[in-house]
């Protein structure tokens, strides 16, 4: 259903940018009811994160504040909010879209660089220690199958993922 009026509404560039990204499509459906915030385990624990606020700031076009701030990294991806949203805003996915945008611009928390280098170097985000690999037959486990690192690197290169960490990881 479309309304003529809708076309005349001011469109804020940032929400347009996010809604065109994978995961961000539903951001503009939000009517700020706060069901997300009351379902959020993190919002109950710290004042630094409130999903309703993140969506609001994004809709109002506060691009810098969102992309360089701490809040988007405090979602624990539990999907409780998304499950309950009466407007079907895919909140956890919108936050992925915001994180993806922040990372493209170089705002990368250290832990994510660690995950990415594990992936790029070993094909696993949690690398397996030699100690545990040796221990496998002792406890009665079969040897680990090799990870498909070659295929993975081709995928990472096709999507440009490997270029998000230009020099540091290449050396």
């Amino acid at each position: 259903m479309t309304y003529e009026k809708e076309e005349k509404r001011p469109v804020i560039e940032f929400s347009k940018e996010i809604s065109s990204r994978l995961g961000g499509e539903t951001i503009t459906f939000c009517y700020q009811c706060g069901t997300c915030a009351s379902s959020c385990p993190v919002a109950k624990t710290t004042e630094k994160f409130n999903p309703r606020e993140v969506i609001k700031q994004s809709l109002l076009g506060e691009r810098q504040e969102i992309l360089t701030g701490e809040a988007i990294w405090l979602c624990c991806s539990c999907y409780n909010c998304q499950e309950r949203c009466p407007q079907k805003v895919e909140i956890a996915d919108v936050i992925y879209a915001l994180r993806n945008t922040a990372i493209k611009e170089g705002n990368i928390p250290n832990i994510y660089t660690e995950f990415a280098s594990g992936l790029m170097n070993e094909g696993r985000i949690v690398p397996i220690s030699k100690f545990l690999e040796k221990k496998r037959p002792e406890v009665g486990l079969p040897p680990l199958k090799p990870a498909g690192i070659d295929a993975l690197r081709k995928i990472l290169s096709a999507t440009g993922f490997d270029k998000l960490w230009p020099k540091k990881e290449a050396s």
Partner: protein
Amino acid sequence: MTSYALFLGCTIPARQPHYELSARKSLAKLGIELVDLDNMTCCAPPPLQSIDLETSLSIAAYNICLAEEADLNIITLCTGCFESLAMANTLLKEHEKLKERVNKILTSAGKEFKGEKEVRHYLQVLMNDVGLDRLKKSVTKDLGNLKVASFSGCHALRPSHLLKFDDPERPQIFDTLIETLGAKSVWYRNKLKCCGGLLRGYADDVALAIARDKIVNTTKAGADCISTLCPFCFLTLDLGQMLIKSAFHEEYNMPVIHYTELLSLALGIEPKELALDFHKVRLDKMISKIA
């Protein structure tokens, strides 16, 4: 004998050989064959989805392609892997354009996602392939004195329209499977709430406060143990109790046990065969209640 391609993931082989061991032993006993395929990679879970969703979907799809080539459905132990793979599988099956976009990327690795296979959580395999009747008949130990606080974690349940696992607000599968073993499943406050595990490494204090809530609530409910499905929840709650001890000066000693371990014990597999030394919180007291 039903065969599945085992998707092992990263965290289980890297941290929790006891989980893998109990899964292999118990599922074999119930006639489920696990096939280990070459060249699987990371499943592309939330930390990678946070970096780039398109890459993550492509990596998940690549892994599903390997199962398609082997003509097998996938079974997952790790809930994170289940979410990443099942979500990608449903999305790509239901959205032709997204499938085309991902397949374009996959040609670089010589793969094509066809959408011919299913991604199953191992609890679904127990429910559907083994069945409650056969499971009940396979139990040789008496777990009647054991009060179990089930904690399925978030990513077995949500997002429910993509995972199609259980009701996200009133799930029943996990508790049914605990009671089928003869144990009592106990209710506790905030049972469906997240463990906070995904915030570890970015906001450790927030993650620990959320985990502590879970330990406090299960303790108050009088549970003998928490049963988990996800290696990340396990880590957050088991190792987490060591961290809670130093940060809050509180000691709970609440055993945390993967469902496959509980299942193995119920099927009569000896505790000494299950590498239980990898647990931080000792299980002795809990195991002594099994006759």
